[in-house]
């Protein structure tokens, strides 16, 4: 056994709701931190460095809002930096914390953050500002119509229907009903989804993630520290990132560099994570997956990119067969996923946290039996920057 591994020793997630009027922004950060520290059984003196997880400042309405979280994460006079990879921020922050430990410089590192998307007014107004100010903002682009275009192309290429998209929501809501942390937990039917109002065709209201407020934190440690202190842990065995072009037009039309229907760079990131973890046959080696999919259609190309099916587009048929349900072949988003909870700054961190809880056997009512190896992903920018991880018991 290598002594260079990096383990997860503490996980904390706050309650996620549309509004958290009971907690200020720093208090919301603190909520996840306290739970992670209690879970790790450590006090703050043990934390040697902190990685702050926060995506666009404009969601909070404060420039460099991580500065206001310094005391909430106990970072005064300690190494502290922030990650912002858009929606991938949470998994990128865990990756940055991983690099802190894997570098050999630190034994124990905390990563934490929070978001109050439900209180930012309208996240799509903020997210319109991620695009080129001259050409794309005035369209107007948002992340919903951005991924509606992906859905249309996926329908054309692989035969996905609106009913198939609805099946993703139905599955994930059923999972979320088992997860007390999830924001949207009401079970819905295919008809409920199909009859919900169109937001940007073919995406309807119930194909969309909510705007959530909440926080999360994780404590990572070196294998030596974990052994010396007789701590329980699960292990990060694969880490990767990859990016696509900023320009969505270059993902469409003739001979695109990366097809917008798919998630090319997500696949490349998984390739890297799998190679690092020694995974050669993910269809058989992966037991559980938490894949960042804020709209129902994007779960399909995420499953394809993670190679949980033999070829692109096969995820549609396999989902119809129930293979990605809890109890199925490879449960995908047993927590309910991003579709049921999306506090953007920590959403991708929650993907890692939920997979860690699964392989740890601590996921509660949404536990996947026998899960020993899981994968997580995060997507940021205009479906552009992707982070992935492999977590093992």
């Amino acid at each position, binding site marked *: 056994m290598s002594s*260079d591994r990096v383990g997860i020793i503490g996980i904390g997630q706050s309650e996620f709701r549309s509004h958290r009027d009971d907690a200020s922004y720093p208090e919301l950060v603190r909520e996840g931190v306290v739970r992670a520290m209690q879970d790790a059984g450590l006090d703050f003196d043990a934390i040697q460095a902190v990685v702050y997880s926060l*995506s*666009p*400042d*404009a969601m909070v*309405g*404060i*420039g*460099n*809002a*991580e*500065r*206001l*979280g*310094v*005391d909430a994460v106990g*970072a*005064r*006079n*300690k*190494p*502290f*930096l*922030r*990650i*912002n*990879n*858009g929606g991938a921020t949470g998994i*990128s922050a865990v*990756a*940055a914390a991983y*690099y*802190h430990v*894997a*570098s*050999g*410089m*630190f*034994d124990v590192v905390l990563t934490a953050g929070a978001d109050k998307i439900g209180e930012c007014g309208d996240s799509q107004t*903020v*997210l319109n*500002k*991620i695009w*080129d*100010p001259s050409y794309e903002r005035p369209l107007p682009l948002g992340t919903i119509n951005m991924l509606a275009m992906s859905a249309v192309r996926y329908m054309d290429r692989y035969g996905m229907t609106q009913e198939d998209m609805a099946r993703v929501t139905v599955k994930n809501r059923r999972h979320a009903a088992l997860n007390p942390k999830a924001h949207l937990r009401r079970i819905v039917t295919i008809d409920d989804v199909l009859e919900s109002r169109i937001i940007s065709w073919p995406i309807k209201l119930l194909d969309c993630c909510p705007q959530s407020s909440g926080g999360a934190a994780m404590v990572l440690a070196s294998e030596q520290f974990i052994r010396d202190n007789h701590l329980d842990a699960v292990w990060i065995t694969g*880490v*990767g*990132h*990859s*990016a*696509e*072009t*900023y320009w969505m037009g270059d993902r469409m039309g003739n001979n695109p560099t990366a097809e917008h229907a798919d998630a090319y760079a997500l696949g490349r*990131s998984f390739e*890297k994570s799998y190679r*690092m973890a020694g995974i050669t046959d993910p269809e058989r080696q992966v037991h559980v997956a938490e894949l960042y999919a804020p709209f129902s259609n994007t779960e399909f190309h995420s499953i394809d990119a993670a190679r949980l099916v033999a070829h692109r587009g096969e995820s549609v048929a396999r989902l119809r067969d129930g293979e990605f349900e809890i109890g199925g072949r490879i449960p995908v988003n047993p927590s309910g996923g991003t579709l049921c909870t999306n506090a953007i700054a920590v959403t991708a961190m929650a993907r890692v946290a939920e997979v860690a809880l699964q392989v740890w056997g601590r996921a509660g009512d949404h536990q996947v039996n026998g899960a020993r190896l899981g994968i997580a992903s995060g997507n940021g*920018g*205009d479906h*552009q*920057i992707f982070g992935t991880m492999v977590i093992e018991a």
Partner: protein
Amino acid sequence: MGMRVQPGVIGCTIRPAIASRDRSLEEMIYDTVQLALADAAISIDDIDGIVVAANDQFDGRSISVMMASGPVGGVDRDIMSTPSASEHAFILGALRVATGQFRTQLVVSWSPTEVSSMSEAQRLGADPYFHRALPLDELSAHALQASAIEHVQPNARAAATAVAEKNRAHGRLAWPDPPLQPAAGPLRWPIMPTMTSAPVTGSVAMVLAASDFVAERGVRDVAWLRGMGWATEPSFLGDRDLATAPALAAAARQAYEAAGIADAATAFDLVEVTDATPYAELLAYEALSLCPRPEWAARTADGSFARGGRVPVNLSGGVLTWNPVFCTGLIRIAEVANQIRGRAGAHQVANARSGLAHAGSGFAMQYQSAIVLAKEARP
């Protein structure tokens, strides 16, 4: 604990003032990256990973890294972004090389000036209930810090004036015709026009490589990372003693311990500090153990920190000469790397073998970092 793999700086480009309006921000970043790659004598195909740092408010975008992924070569490559400080991009890039999982890292930061009011953009970073309404921008916070220092340290203003004169003299040698702050009278009392400089557009890129890559490619001009430390102060100014810099002292302890430095005052051939104001430079002297505060006046008067002095500080002219606001921290690190590599140009100091970079940013230097670079790899 030490790094598993020692990173070294093998390429740098500092573009401290970009006046041209015929290049977009994307093209400016592309140019900077290409120059850094050329300086390292490698191509983008040799880059394993990228870390960028930019400020959404200055860029006028919600996620600055998105636009930059193409110009920095991030497409189909491992890219991460830190918006907290430009120097944090160096730190994360170095950590990634130190893991042994990356052989190279490209580190890039930029700071445009197209925002209608830099002060207003900075005010957005203040707490919305208590500080934003003051109004508080970075210069105001620096001025509060200067006032706090003057309150407890006699002769601080004379020492600060001497620091400003020193850095301007250095700047005249390093860069022709530096712009002077046009305002008259105190900008924010007690900060005088000669104690700071107007924001300019700038960018900086660095290439880091692992020791095995350096050996394999036969790279000769390397600035090896011997130690680095970074730390943060709390966010509320009222929670801080602005006349002290405990986070920088903590950062220096980390860096010196890693580098095996017992006496910082005699350890370095040159030092670059983030002189957002000369008071910030004075505070750095103390926190970096270069000079205790009772000696500020004497040491600044006798030229100890001037070219030819005991430890030259800010041979580049520092931020007082050029102020591309967000990337001034990473520029300090790049300046020291260039000196160690013998590529500093007109302000090159002879036989530079060991250098210290201090990077500070945020309100009254909330974020503090200390980076030790040397000609020789670690023993």
